[in-house]
């Protein structure tokens, strides 16, 4: 019986049982639905085995939206719990699990796939390439990420969720203080997903360095591609730190080593240190692509070239190096000397400079521009003031002496939500709205979209500004309740209302998608926003080879030149196109990794060994496999092009 006891949730509550039933029923419904409509073959051929960067991108998007929902439910639960003093809605253990999964899910399984969706969908299109450098590895990245995400998410119905915070500091995360398998899930699921991220980082860097269209020098790349390039450079150099760190944490928990123990020489502070060596660059991995999206959107709707292209690039390069120089500011109070704290205070404040440069560049782009207030532009305009507020409170936190007052209070929570929500989440929604017509051939409703943006911003301000105040008054983060006498109750109630309003805005976003699917016009051509860079130069829907003829560019705004200045993008005739074959191998390897991860979480060694051998067999099989891809013939290209031209009734 002991064997099976481990799989039970250690601290069950009505909510957990209800969601178990809910998840079970949904799964059954999905399986029955696919079987009933006979879609298994379609799913396997067109999606699971695909190596097309656009489809992989859309799968990332689906995961991100699903996880946004899950993380959002966690957030609402937390805000409700704190809305009243001595609330009995969640008990302490459940609250710990909720804030832990909220953090992990939102950062690693919502924001990361969301930006990876943009990387996948946009990078090859923006640089005029047919696909990424290693299409099959790209599929593997997705499936590793997906399986890591899946493994993390089953934790709350099988064996219990992690409960040591998204930072999972030791000694709290060791076996003594976190006895359930929850933290094992944390260590292993993030490891698997992180491998996927690292592989896709290598893939995108190679793609950007080697596969740009003729004429597109590095300094002529669209700004989003630049930001993606820098973000992936950070991925490649930051994620190995996480790999080692999680491996050490796993060994401490499963094999009884003494890395982070408090006896036998172990040093728990090493975890915090290495976590942030990865964790701080991770923040920039999220924000830089968001900056890239804003740059695209702002220059499109100000109808101007981006102001200060070179300083934009330079500031991102500086940020990429500096992001590795500031990690100590996450633990100023840990006990290192004033000398060290001073160094990292200064580097932290210094990183505000390149960020400030970017803000001013956007403002100068707007200056004298013919601004068009579309939904994506509205998000960008809301982003600038709200994000600046978050940035300024960041500089407050950067002062190590003052940080002793703010550390681990709600002030900090308010700060990082204030940069991540207007910075990253707004960018994701703005980008999604902006690129939606490119992906699906119709636009999202503008009226509902603008309402969503305003409601989200009102909700955001109500939810997070009060936390600055309660934080300064001393409300600690991660506390599941507080007493009436603290006087925090009114502001926390306001924050809960704000969170509720934000939830309404996300519901409105979903309604907008539904509404637009039903009512939006399908006759929008391939360039509905009058945009500037190459991704808009191809047809909508984008054919699988992206561009029938490789475009040739001469500036950062190739498509704009073609439209307004008579630049000729597509020179030459059709030639046969080499494309990679689909493959089931990445999915199968991902599945084996999932089982391997599960076996590790529960220390089922025979299964772990068998699956490890399975992984090696897959790699050997891949090494010996002969696959030279396939060719799309000229006739086929002509046919596709004619059809797509017919769809949009214009000749370009």
């Amino acid at each position, binding site marked *: 019986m002991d064997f099976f006891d481990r799989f039970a949730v250690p601290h069950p509550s009505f909510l957990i049982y209800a969601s178990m039933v809910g998840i079970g029923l949904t799964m059954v419904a999905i399986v029955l639905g696919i079987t009933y409509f006979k879609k298994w073959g379609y799913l396997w051929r067109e999606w699971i085995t695909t190596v097309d960067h656009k489809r992989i991108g859309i799968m990332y998007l689906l995961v991100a939206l699903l996880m946004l929902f899950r993380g959002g439910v966690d957030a609402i639960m937390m805000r409700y719990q704190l809305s009243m003093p001595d609330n009995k809605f969640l008990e302490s253990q459940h609250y710990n699990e909720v804030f832990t999964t909220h953090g992990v899910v939102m950062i690693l399984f919502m924001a990361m796939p969301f930006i990876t969706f943009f990387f996948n969908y946009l990078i090859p299109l923006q640089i005029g390439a047919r696909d990424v*450098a*290693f299409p099959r590895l790209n599929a593997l990245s997705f499936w590793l990420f997906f399986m890591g995400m899946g493994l993390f998410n089953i934790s709350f119905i099988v064996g219990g969720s992690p409960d040591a915070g998204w930072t999972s500091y030791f000694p709290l995360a060791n076996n003594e203080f976190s006895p359930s398998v929850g933290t094992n899930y944390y260590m292993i699921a993030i490891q698997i997903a992180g491998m996927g991220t*690292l592989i896709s*980082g*290598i*893939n995108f*860097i*190679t793609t950007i*360095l*080697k*596969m740009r269209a003729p004429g597109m020098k590095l300094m002529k790349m669209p700004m989003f591609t630049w930001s993606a390039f820098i973000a992936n450079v950070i991925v*490649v*150099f*930051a*994620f*190995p*730190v996480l*790999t*080692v*760190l999680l*491996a*050490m944490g796993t*060994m401490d928990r499963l*094999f*009884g*080593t*003494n*890395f982070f*123990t408090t*006896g*036998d*020489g*172990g*040093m728990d502070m*090493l975890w915090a240190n*290495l976590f942030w*060596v990865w964790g701080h660059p991770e923040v920039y991995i999220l924000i830089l692509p968001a900056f890239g999206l804003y740059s695209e959107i702002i220059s499109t709707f100000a109808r101007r070239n981006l102001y200060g292209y070179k300083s934009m690039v330079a500031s991102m390069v500086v940020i990429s190096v500096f992001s590795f120089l500031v990690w100590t500011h996450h633990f100023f109070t840990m006990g290192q000397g004033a000398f060290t704290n001073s160094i990292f205070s200064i580097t932290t404040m210094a990183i505000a400079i390149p960020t400030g440069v970017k803000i001013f560049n956007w403002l100068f782009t707007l200056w004298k521009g013919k601004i068009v207030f579309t939904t994506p532009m509205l998000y960008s305009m809301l982003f600038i003031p709200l994000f600046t507020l978050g940035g300024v409170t960041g500089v407050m936190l950067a002062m190590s002496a003052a940080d002793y007052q703010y550390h681990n209070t709600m002030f900090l929570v308010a700060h990082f939500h204030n940069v991540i929500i207007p910075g990253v989440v707004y960018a994701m929604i703005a980008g999604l709205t902006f690129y939606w017509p490119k992906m699906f051939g119709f636009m999202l409703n503008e009226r509902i979209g603008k309402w969503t943006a305003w409601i989200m911003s009102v909700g955001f301000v109500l939810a997070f500004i009060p936390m600055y105040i309660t934080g300064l008054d001393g409300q600690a983060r991660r506390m599941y309740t507080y007493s009436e006498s603290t006087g925090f109750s009114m502001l926390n109630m306001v924050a809960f209302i704000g969170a509720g309003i934000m939830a309404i805005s996300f519901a409105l976003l979903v309604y907008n998608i539904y509404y637009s699917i039903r009512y939006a016009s399908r006759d929008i051509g391939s360039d509905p926003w009058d945009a500037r860079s190459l991704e808009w130069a191809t047809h909508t829907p984008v054919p699988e080879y992206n561009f029938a003829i490789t475009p040739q560019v001469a500036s950062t705004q190739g498509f704009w030149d073609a439209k307004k200045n008579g630049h000729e993008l597509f020179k030459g005739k059709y030639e046969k196109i*080499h494309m990679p074959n689909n493959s089931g191998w990445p999915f199968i390897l991902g599945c084996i990794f999932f089982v391997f991860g599960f076996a590790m979480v529960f220390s089922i060694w025979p299964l772990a060994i068998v699956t490890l051998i399975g992984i*090696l067999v897959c790699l*050997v099989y891949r*090494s*010996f496999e002969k696959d*030279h891809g396939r060719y799309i013939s000229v006739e086929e290209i002509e046919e596709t092009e004619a059809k797509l031209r017919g769809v949009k009734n214009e000749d370009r």
Partner: protein
Amino acid sequence: MKIDNSLPLEYSTEENNLKILGFWIFLGAEIMLFATLFTMYFTLENRIGHGPSGAEIFEITPVLVETILLLTSSFVIGLGIHAMRLGNKKAMMVFFSITLLLGAGFLGFEIFEFVHYNHVGATLQTSAFTAALLTTLGTHGLHVTFGLFWGLAILIQIKKRGLTPETTNKSFIFSLYWHFLDVIWIFIFSFIYLKGMM
């Protein structure tokens, strides 16, 4: 597939060039992986708890043998790539086989070393120092082990398929990997063993 005959085979197609650059970037990530291990090791090296210290358990002989074996194997695989560029399949296979044998010899000595550590009471669970030491060495050793299987797979493919753009590309990338492991070993040799015994 376009093949450019003016270049060595391993660079002759677009795909091959992508793979070589991609692998270099992967090596950039590997630099960080081992840097993190070194960070951890240097932080924990004096935290020996009740266990032995480095100076007490390190022995120069096996370490020196391992160093010579790995340095030589790195040299030999360089010769293998040179032979490959001359189009000399047989010489290349001989050099690659010697490389793998030297690698296996290295691994044998490392296992012997681990057994020795176990014997003198320095196990994975003894102290923070021993965990750091064995994890760092073990990660390098696992890389070598993986390399042995990988190299073997490439040898078989060269034997069966000859020197084609694909097989030469794989061999070249494998040689990068092998040299890189040698570089890492030099740092382990200098800053774990020699520094520890100084």
